[in-house]
């Protein structure tokens, strides 16, 4: 919860700064964001590449493990697509927001860069909400529905921020599946969002 507070504070500080600054050149800001993003993803890439060894360790669980991130990705996009019927948003827009899988920092920046600042803001808020919901839903699902199902709400965050709570509420094999699922979903986001922008 402390993390969520820090995240919201950072964004609010940015909003206040943007509001107070006499004029922000959007092109300069875009360039800075893209450069910083590239550095961040280089770091995330190192982490993913390094954790490849973890993937080898849990080979025993078998190929079925990919069904977990597969179902989470498919379910998230299918669920989000219903949003285009309920809201004044196109199918492409709701899919882009849903394709963040809870990774608010990357999805909001990518969508701002590739689509629009407005949808980027929606993506940021939606993915922060998703993470918040995950913190509440994981314990509930783990107790009432099943351990594996408890991995779903976390989306891409189950390899980092929501992993501790999954580990606490379930068991080690489930936490390992959650980690791999989060890793796969995290790897998918930077490919899926540009793909959705390009194709639909």
């Amino acid at each position, binding site marked *: 919860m402390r993390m969520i507070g820090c995240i919201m504070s950072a964004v609010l*500080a940015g909003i206040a700064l943007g509001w107070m600054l006499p004029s922000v050149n959007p092109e300069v800001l875009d360039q800075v964001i893209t450069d*910083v993003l590239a550095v961040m993803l280089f770091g995330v890439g190192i982490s993913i*590449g390094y954790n490849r060894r973890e993937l080898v360790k849990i080979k025993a669980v078998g190929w079925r493990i990919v*069904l*977990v991130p597969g179902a989470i990705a498919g*379910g998230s996009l299918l669920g989000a697509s219903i949003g285009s019927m309920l809201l004044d948003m196109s199918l492409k827009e709701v899919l882009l927001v849903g394709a963040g899988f809870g990774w608010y920092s990357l999805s909001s920046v990518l969508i701002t860069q590739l689509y629009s600042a407005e949808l980027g803001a929606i993506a940021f808020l939606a993915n922060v909400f998703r993470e918040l919901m995950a913190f509440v839903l994981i314990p509930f699902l783990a107790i009432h529905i099943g351990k594996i199902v408890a991995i779903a709400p976390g989306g891409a965050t189950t390899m980092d921020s929501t992993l501790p709570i999954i580990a606490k509420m379930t068991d080690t094999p489930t936490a390992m599946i959650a980690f791999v699922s989060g890793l796969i979903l995290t790897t998918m986001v930077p490919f899926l969002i540009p793909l959705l922008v390009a194709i639909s």
Partner: protein
Amino acid sequence: MEIVIISLLAGCLLGASNVISEKWIGRLDQIVMAIVFVLLIAVGIGIGSNRELIGNLTLLGYKAIVVAGISTIGSVLALWFVVLKVDFFQHHKKEEEQL
């Protein structure tokens, strides 16, 4: 935007090689976290400097809650369906017995 994908893949290759020690991976997480905060402030500046966006923040928040809610429910239902069809732990136990 290609630079973003290229740096991710370059990072993956570097991480998969044996160059990076475990000690550095721990520090890396902190560095990435610090960069995330810089990005969040930058995203905030983008929102704050756009008066039209600020005026619409309540509507955007409403849209965000709806999309977040239904995509989360969608993922839970889809995974629940898969879990009913595939027994992950049974499979895991069998593998453990074999090992």
